[in-house]
């Protein structure tokens, strides 16, 4: 089974060929936006983090931003900072440059302000866009793929149809030497004992139990019932009663292979196979984390029909709910509702999703890509000072 993509200097393969303008800090967003206005073909990546953060929270934001810059779908990166932030443009550039892809930075205050920074940034972008535009796709194997999997607007069809169908795809990719990253720690609560049985080592098993416990402890520290936040009102309207029920359906999206490791949010896996990434279920943060972990493509099972996308990694939306498939055609890429009608097996449905994955990898735009639906949102776990 062959894909076609853009081979990067480090040997990784992108299935998109973006030139990114990446803010290292929220204060630089204005500058990034002005450059993106001059170069609409560049991919604008703005966010609200990067400064006045503490410890693990700062580390996590830096890791996610580095991972985004390193994502193989990005051909070249211009990092924009102010020069006064804690996650500096210089630092991100140094890390991203380990991939040997073209990467430059601007620190607006050091350049002498906005008016001086803009022409310099424009010059970098002009060169990067010229370079990227001359790259061509070449054939590669599935071992080049890191697939992200995230479910959203879950209903009770998700655990019966779309999640297990995508689990079939996850298994196929791993059997072909690829990598699959799934996550959403709150949506393992009540199902961790099932996933833990598939841990490659006792250390991986402990890591999984640890992140789930930390997640549940955060809920307990809030003094609130998790219900209402997760399952969210949309999940409950779709028939999901408790977090345990949601989790037992959610873990099926990762398939049935051995769990090789538990990643921090936005952390790039060191090997091949199946990985779990710690992080929230909330869609923008979950998708951003998967792009940071290096997923070139994300498959997104949805019951109620979330329109969400990622700016960096094409998102393939799959529903097992026949009403959603009919009502939200603009947002759903693949309809696997024949499963619950008893007209299709999980394997057949998985095959149809897999075929779409091959098409998307080779350039077909997903529904959310056509609509430019997406945002960067980094999971924030500490106070802002």
């Amino acid at each position, binding site marked *: 089974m062959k894909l076609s993509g853009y081979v990067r200097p480090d040997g990784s393969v992108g299935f998109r060929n973006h030139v990114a303008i990446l803010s290292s800090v929220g204060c630089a967003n204005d500058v990034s936006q002005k450059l993106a206005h001059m170069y609409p073909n560049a991919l604008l990546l703005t966010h609200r983090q990067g400064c006045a953060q503490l410890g693990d929270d700062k580390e996590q934001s830096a890791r996610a931003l580095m991972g985004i810059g390193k994502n193989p779908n990005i051909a070249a990166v211009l990092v924009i900072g102010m020069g006064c932030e804690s996650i500096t443009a210089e630092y991100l550039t140094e890390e991203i440059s380990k991939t040997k892809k073209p990467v430059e930075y601007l620190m607006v205050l050091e350049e002498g302000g906005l008016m001086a920074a803009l022409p310099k940034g424009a010059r970098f972008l002009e060169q990067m866009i010229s370079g990227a535009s001359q790259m061509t796709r070449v054939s590669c194997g599935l071992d080049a793929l890191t697939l992200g999997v995230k479910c959203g607007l879950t209903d009770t069809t998700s655990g019966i149809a779309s999640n297990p169908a995508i689990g079939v795809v996850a298994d196929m990719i791993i059997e072909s030497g690829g990598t699959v990253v799934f996550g959403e720690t709150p949506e393992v609560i009540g199902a961790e004992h099932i996933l833990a049985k598939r841990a490659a080592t006792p250390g991986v098993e402990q890591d999984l139990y640890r992140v789930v416990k930390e997640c549940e402890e955060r809920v307990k520290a809030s003094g609130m019932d998790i219900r*209402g936040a997760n399952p969210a009102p949309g999940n409950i*309207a779709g028939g999901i009663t408790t977090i345990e029920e949601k989790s037992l359906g959610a873990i099926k999206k990762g398939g049935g292979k051995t769990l090789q490791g538990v990643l921090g949010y936005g952390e790039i896996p060191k090997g091949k196979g199946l990985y779990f990434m710690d992080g929230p279920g909330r869609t923008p943060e979950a998708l951003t984390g998967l792009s940071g972990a290096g997923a070139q493509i994300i498959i997104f099972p949805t019951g109620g029909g979330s329109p969400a996308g990622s700016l960096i990694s094409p998102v393939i939306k799959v529903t097992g709910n026949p009403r959603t498939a009919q009502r939200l055609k603009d947002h759903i890429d693949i309809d696997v509702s024949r499963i619950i009608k008893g007209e299709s097996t999980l394997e057949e449905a998985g095959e149809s999703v897999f075929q779409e994955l091959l098409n998307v990898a080779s350039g077909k735009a997903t529904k959310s890509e056509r609509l430019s639906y997406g945002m960067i949102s980094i999971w924030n776990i500490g106070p802002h000072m």
Partner: protein
Amino acid sequence: MRSRCLSRSMARPFSVQTNDINKREESKMKKAIVIDLKDNVATLLADVDANDVVHVMMGDKTNETKVQESIQFGHKFAMKTINKGQNVVKYGEVIGQATQDIGEGQHVHVHNVESLRGRGDLA
């Protein structure tokens, strides 16, 4: 008291809108699925009204159960009586506990089931 208020607002069915075509198609089927033989709930694959007889698929077997109330597509009903304090089982696993007695064919959802996990309100 708080959980009752929460349950009402959360049960508001805004995302499951039915159009007429769907309703006509599904009125012919009225199916439900039991995922694991240990389960005491079934998931509906159609909207049902009180006293509808539902064909419940349980692996290779099918069973017929009469539902006692009108319940939406995708929601669950009890396959047998679940007494207050008993576990609600789906996927062969515990998904919560009944907060009141639930009769066979009755709707099983946030109004009569509570989570055993993520309960900061009880911590």
